[in-house]
């Protein structure tokens, strides 16, 4: 039935397939430069990982080519020919087999030794001079606290380039995983346990934004638990800290005034804190809400429209969100959005 396994037509098909695969792969290479790429690291931690990943990739690529090549060669070379006699019944070749067992073990040494070095290098104790950041993973948003500066923010992490930062990961509800792909590997955020990540972001030329995301399934809106890391060039971080430490300034805009009124009289104050206005601790701190580019688990840009829609119907925008639909009318929500967006 399958007498001619290798026909010209078939060879052409295989070549075509190979060409398509190469094309596809080269598309892949051009796609490495994406906002959440893991292979264009921007920190020491990320580079250590990338180093060993590249080492393993090249090693396995060699094995891959040898094995798949050998397989294809066997398929071509030992295909059944009409009238072929029964092949020699070889049962094995012990020295050869011991040989490749040992060879595999040696290859693993190449990978294993640097792996262990980097395991220990990436889990060293923090230094007192490190920037201390508490990362708190909530269902489904991120809270970032800077105890040294007494600042709390949400869904937006600001880091000074070139300064080592120590992240302490806290989970008040379920397990999350804190992942800033371009700055390095993830760590799970586990209740009743404080994990750590220590890394030094590269000094960028201009303020750079790296999206991050929760990487451990944590319930309905796991996909919506995103955040942004903003790495500042020298000096800029301190400015940001000053702005955040300052109390919010009341806007003179009447709509915002009306929004503030609504906010203080509604149940909002039970969950959200705005310095000098309210002191809730369940939802994100809103003191400098307008200074952040995105909100609600970094799901949306902070435009008046988005914010108003969110206040009116959070459940629609982030399924399962702990902020309930409060029966706020669209007029009211517009006013409240204006207020929140005045909190620079």
């Amino acid at each position: 039935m399958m007498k001619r396994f290798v026909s010209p037509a078939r060879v052409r098909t295989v070549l075509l397939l190979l060409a398509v695969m190469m094309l596809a792969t080269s598309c892949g290479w051009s796609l490495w430069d994406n906002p959440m790429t893991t292979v264009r690291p921007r920190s020491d931690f990320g580079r250590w990982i990338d180093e060993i990943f590249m080492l393993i990739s090249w090693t396995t690529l060699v094995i891959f080519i040898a094995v798949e090549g050998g397989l294809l060669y066997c398929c071509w070379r030992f295909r059944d020919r009409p009238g072929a006699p029964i092949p020699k019944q070889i049962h094995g070749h012990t020295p050869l087999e011991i040989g490749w067992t040992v060879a595999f073990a040696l290859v693993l040494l190449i990978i294993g030794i640097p792996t262990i070095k980097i395991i220990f290098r990436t889990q060293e104790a923090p230094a007192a001079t490190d920037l201390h950041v508490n990362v708190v993973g909530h269902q489904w948003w991120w809270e970032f606290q800077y105890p040294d500066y007494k600042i709390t923010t949400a869904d937006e992490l600001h880091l000074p380039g070139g300064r080592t930062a120590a992240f302490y990961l806290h989970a008040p509800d379920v397990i999350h995983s804190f992942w800033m792909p371009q700055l390095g590997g993830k760590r799970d955020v586990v209740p009743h346990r404080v994990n750590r990540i220590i890394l030094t972001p590269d000094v960028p030329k201009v303020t750079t934004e790296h999206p991050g995301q929760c990487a451990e399934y944590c319930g309905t809106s796991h996909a919506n638990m995103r955040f942004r890391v903003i790495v500042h060039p020298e000096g800029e971080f301190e400015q940001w800290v000053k702005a955040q430490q300052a109390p919010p300034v009341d806007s003179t805009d009447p709509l915002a005034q009306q929004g503030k009124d609504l906010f203080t009289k509604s149940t909002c104050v039970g969950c959200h804190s705005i310095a000098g206005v309210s002191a809730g601790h369940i939802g994100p701190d809103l003191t400098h809400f307008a200074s952040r580019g995105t909100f609600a688990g970094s799901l949306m840009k902070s435009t008046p429209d988005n914010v108003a829609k969110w206040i009116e119907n959070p459940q629609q925008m982030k399924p399962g969100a702990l902020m309930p639909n409060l029966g706020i009318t669209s007029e009211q929500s517009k006013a409240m959005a204006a207020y929140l967006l005045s909190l620079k």
Partner: protein
Amino acid sequence: MAESHAAAVAHSGGHASIRTYINVAVALTILTTLEVASLYIPGIPNWLLVTALIVMAGLKFFLVVGFFMHLRYDSSVMRALFVGPLFIAILIILALMALFSAFILLPHHVL
């Protein structure tokens, strides 16, 4: 005695004589008494107590499995089927214990 023992072995895959059973039971009683008594030795160092208790429990375990369950006389297949899993189970208990104290446990409120 020896004959009846041999007959018994031939009959059913083998087991010990009644006298052996009684001897084992006596040994088990003594070991249990020692276990409990060792708790009340005044000033016994903790490590010694723990080691002694584990050794004695291990001995009792071995006596019951070896004699009452006839594993000493049984086919090596049966022995492998039980001892192998027992070995893995013990390793897993030890690994779990190691893992649960090796975690970095910082106080909950570093905030």
